[in-house]
C-alpha cells in the first residue's frame, strides 16, 4: 500500500529526539528519509540506550532504534566544504530538509535557507531551534530539561505536601518529542502550500514556544486572573490523584458530578460522602486534605484491575498506573496490533511501539529497522549522486563520509 507521503524525499540532520521524531512521523507515512549523521560518532542518541543487557553499543540504543526506523542512513561531515557541497547535491533532489542543529552551529556551517533555496527553490526547510531563531535567547545552550523548565510544564508538577522538593520533569526527553511533532505539523503545512504553486519556504519552530502552548488552563491564571500557578497550588477539581490499592496504583478520576456520584455508590454510600465540604468538585478540591485519607482507606482495600473494571462499568474514567510490563503485555494493545516485531542486523529482534495513529487508506507503517551508521553511503552517494567508488573511498579516507 502506498503511503500518504510516498515519493516525498526528506533529509534529516537530526540529533537526539526532536528532528528525528519529526522525520520518524513522516517516514511512517511513506516519505523517504535520508538521515545524515556525523562520521565519527553519529547521532548522540546512539549513546543513550537503553541497551540490551545494559551494555552500550552504538547500534543497539533503544532511543536511536525507536526514533529512526524506516530511514536511510548516511554519514557526512558538514564542517568541511566538500561535505557541505554533497549536502547541496542531496538538497537538489529532495523536498524537505529538517534539522535541529543549534543556531550557533547553523551559523558556523552556513546552513541557511537562502543558500539551499538557490540550489532547490521548491525546498521546504525546517529548523527546530530551542528558543527559535530570533530574540535574546536565540543562541542559548539548551538541553531537554532546561527547555522543559523554560517552556513552563516543569513548574506545574510536584508535590504540594513537600514544597522542599523541586519542580519535577516528566520522564524522558519530552521537550524533544513535542518540538519534533509540532515541527512535523508545520512542515506538512508548508508542503500543502507548495502543492499550490511548487514553491518551498523556510519554517522555524521554537521548542520553548511549543511547550508554552500546552500548559492547559494554567497560563491563563496569570493573564486572565492575575494568579500565579505552580506545583504548590491546589488542583481546581478533585479527586484527580494517583492512589494506592492493595496490589498497585490506580488513578482516581472524577471530573463530572455524575462520575463522583457513581463512585460514591461504588464505595457503598459512606456517611462522610454526604458532608457539605465534599458537595461539588470545587469543594472537594478545596477540602482535599480531608477527603484524601477517606478515599485512600477504601481504595487501599481494592485491587487495581477490579477497581478499574468496576469504575469503568459505571462510566467513571479511572485508569491503572501502567508499568512498562503492563503496556507490553496489554491485551488491548495486542488486540490492536500496536507493537511490531522488527529485526535489526546488529541489535536483534525486538517488539517496537508501532503506529501513533491509523489512517485507514494509507496506514502508518514500520517497513525497516533503523540504519547502521553509514549503512546507505554507497546507495546514496554513488547511486543517487553518481560518485565513483574510488571517489567515495577517498572521501571515506578523508573522514568526510
Amino acid at each position, binding site marked *: 500500500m502506498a503511503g*500518504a507521503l510516498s515519493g516525498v524525499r526528506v533529509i534529516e540532520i537530526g540529533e537526539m529526539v526532536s528532528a528525528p521524531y519529526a522525520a520518524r*512521523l513522516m517516514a511512517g507515512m511513506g516519505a523517504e528519509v535520508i538521515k545524515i549523521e556525523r562520521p565519527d560518532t553519529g547521532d548522540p542518541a546512539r549513546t543513550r*540506550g*537503553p*541497551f540490551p543487557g545494559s551494555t552500550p553499543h552504538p547500534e543497539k540504543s533503544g*532511543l536511536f532504534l*525507536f526514533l529512526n526506523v524506516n530511514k536511510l542512513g548516511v554519514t557526512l561531515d558538514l564542517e568541511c566544504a566538500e561535505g557541505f557541497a554533497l549536502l547541496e547535491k542531496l538538497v537538489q533532489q529532495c523536498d524537505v530538509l529538517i534539522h535541529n542543529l543549534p543556531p550557533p552551529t547553523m551559523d558556523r556551517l552556513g546552513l541557511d*535557507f537562502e543558500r539551499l533555496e538557490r540550489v532547490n527553490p521548491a525546498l521546504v526547510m525546517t529548523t527546530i531551534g530551542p528558543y527559535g531563531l530570533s530574540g*535574546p535567547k536565540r543562541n*542559548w*545552550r539548551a538541553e531537554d530539561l532546561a527547555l522543559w*523548565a523554560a517552556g*513552563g510544564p*516543569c*513548574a506545574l*508538577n510536584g508535590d504540594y505536601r513537600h514544597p522542599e*522538593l*523541586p*519542580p*519535577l*520533569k516528566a*520522564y524522558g526527553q519530552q521537550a524533544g*518529542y*513535542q518540538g519534533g*511533532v509540532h515541527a512535523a505539523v508545520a512542515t*506538512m*503545512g508548508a508542503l*500543502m502550500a507548495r*502543492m499550490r504553486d511548487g514553491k518551498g*519556504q523556510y519554517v522555524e519552530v*521554537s521548542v520553548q*514556544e511549543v511547550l*508554552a*502552548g500546552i500548559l*492547559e*488552563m*494554567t497560563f491563563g*491564571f*496569570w*493573564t*486572565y*486572573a492575575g494568579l*500565579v*500557578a*505552580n506545583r504548590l497550588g491546589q488542583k481546581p477539581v478533585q479527586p484527580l490523584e494517583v492512589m*494506592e490499592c492493595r496490589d498497585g*496504583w*490506580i*488513578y482516581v478520576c472524577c*471530573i463530572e458530578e455524575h462520575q463522583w456520584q457513581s463512585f460514591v455508590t461504588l464505595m457503598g454510600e459512606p456517611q462522610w460522602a454526604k458532608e457539605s465540604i465534599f458537595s461539588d468538585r470545587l469543594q472537594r478540591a478545596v477540602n482535599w486534605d480531608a477527603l484524601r485519607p477517606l478515599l485512600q482507606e477504601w481504595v487501599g482495600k481494592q485491587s487495581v484491575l477490579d477497581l478499574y473494571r468496576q469504575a469503568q462499568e459505571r462510566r467513571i474514567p*479511572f*485508569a491503572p498506573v501502567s508499568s512498562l510490563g503492563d503496556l507490553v503485555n496489554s491485551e*488491548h494493545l495486542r488486540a*490492536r496490533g*500496536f507493537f511490531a516485531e522488527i529485526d535489526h542486523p546488529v541489535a536483534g529482534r525486538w517488539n*517496537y*511501539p508501532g503506529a*501513533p495513529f491509523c*489512517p485507514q487508506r*494509507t496506514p502508518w507503517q514500520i517497513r525497516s529497522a533503523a540504519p547502521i551508521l553509514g549503512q546507505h553511503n554507497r546507495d546514496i552517494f554513488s547511486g543517487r549522486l553518481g560518485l565513483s567508488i574510488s571517489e567515495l573511498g577517498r572521501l571515506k579516507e578523508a573522514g568526510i563520509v
Partner: protein
Amino acid sequence: MSEQAEANARYPLEGIRVLDFCWVWAGPYCTMQLAHMGADVIRIESRKHPCVTRYLPPWADMVPGPNRAFFFNQYNLGKRSLTLDLKAPAAREIVYRLAARSDVVTCNFAHGVIERLGFSYDRLREIKPDLIMISLSGYGDSGTYRDYVAYGPAQVPLSGFSMLTGYREFPPMHTAISYPDPSAGIHGAFAVLAALYHRGRTGEGQYIELSQWDSSMQLLGDALLGYAMNGSQPERDGNRDPHMAPHGLFRCKDPAESALGMPIDRWVAIVGRNDTDWAGIARVLGRPELAADPRFATVAARKRNEDELERLIGEWTAGLEADEVVERLQSAGIAAAVCADNKFLAEDPHLNARGYFCETPHPEIGVRKHAGIPWLMSRTPCAINRPAPLLGEHTEEILTQLLGMTAQEIAQLKEQGVFE
C-alpha cells in the same frame, strides 16, 4: 477553490474547511493547528451541553461565563462557532449540508458516539466522497477496552508516564497537565495534514482513527523498547539523568512578589552534559578546583556522588537571583534556564521580543495574552485572525454564507430550538 483563488491564497490551508465536533482539549488542540494555518474551522457546539472548558476556571477577572474561560478561549483561537441541537432532525440535515462543503470532519467522542449521532464516516462519505475524517478517542475504535471512558488526566498514568515520573522512592506522579491531550491533538493534526496531502495527489479521502493511548506511548518509545530488551522498569529518579550530572533543578532566592498569599519559589534547571561542562560550572561556582576533584572529575564519579554534587550547586544558587544564575551559566556555555511559571512566561522578554503571544481582541473580555503559534513560515505566514468564538457566534453567518439560508428560514429553525 478556483485557480485564481488558489494563486492568491496566503495561508497554507486557505480554502480548507473543517467541520469540528471536537471538545475539551485533545480535539480542539488538533483543529487549532489547522486554524493557525488558515483553515476555516467550524466548531459545532451545543447550548444545552457546551464544551466543559467553557465552565472551567480561570475566567477573565474570575467572573464566570461561557465566553470568559481561558481554557476554551486559548484552544479555540481562530475558529467559528455554530450551535446545533444534534438530536433535532433539522440540525442533522444542516450537518449533512455542511459536510458536503467541508474537507475534514473531526471528533473526539468516546467510541461509537459519532455513529449514533448519524455522522459515521460511511454516511458522510456518501455526501462528500473525498472527505477526510478523524476520530480521536482515548482507547481507539478497536481492542478490549474500546468502550471504556477516557479523560485526559487519566491517560497520563494509563500510558505509562506516571510509573516512570516521580521523586526517588516516592509514589508515581502525574505530569500536572493532561499531557496526552495535546499530544494526541498534535499527532492528529499531522495525520490530517498527511491525509490532505494524499488527497491533493490522488483525490482520495480517508478515515483516520487515533487512539490517545497509542499516540502517548510514542513519547515513551525508548522506555518501551528498553522493557522489550531487558524486562526492566526504570526507577523513578526525580530530575536526574543516567548519562549526565549535574542534571537537576536548584532553588534560588524566592522572588519578591507573592500573589494572593500563594507560595512562590524560584528554581533553575542546570545540565552539565560532560566533563567540560562540569569544569565550566565549577568555574562559575568560583570553585575551579572541583573540576579535578576525584569525587566529580568524571561523569561516573559525579553520578556516584550526585547528592553531594547537588548540595554544592544548591548552596551557590540559594544566595542568588534566578536570572543571575542563568546569566552566569549561559555566559559559560552551560545549559541553564529558569523554571518558568505562568507569570514568568507572560513577562519573558525573549518570548515578547519574538511576538509569540496572541492578543487578538475578544468582544467580551478585550485584549488578553494567549499562547500563540510556535512556528514561523517565511512565505505563507500563519496567523490568528479572530479570537475564540462566543458560543454560537457564527450560527447565522455560516448558515447564510455557506448554505444560502434566508433570515426567515433561520428564524424558523431558531423557533424550533434547532440552535440549542
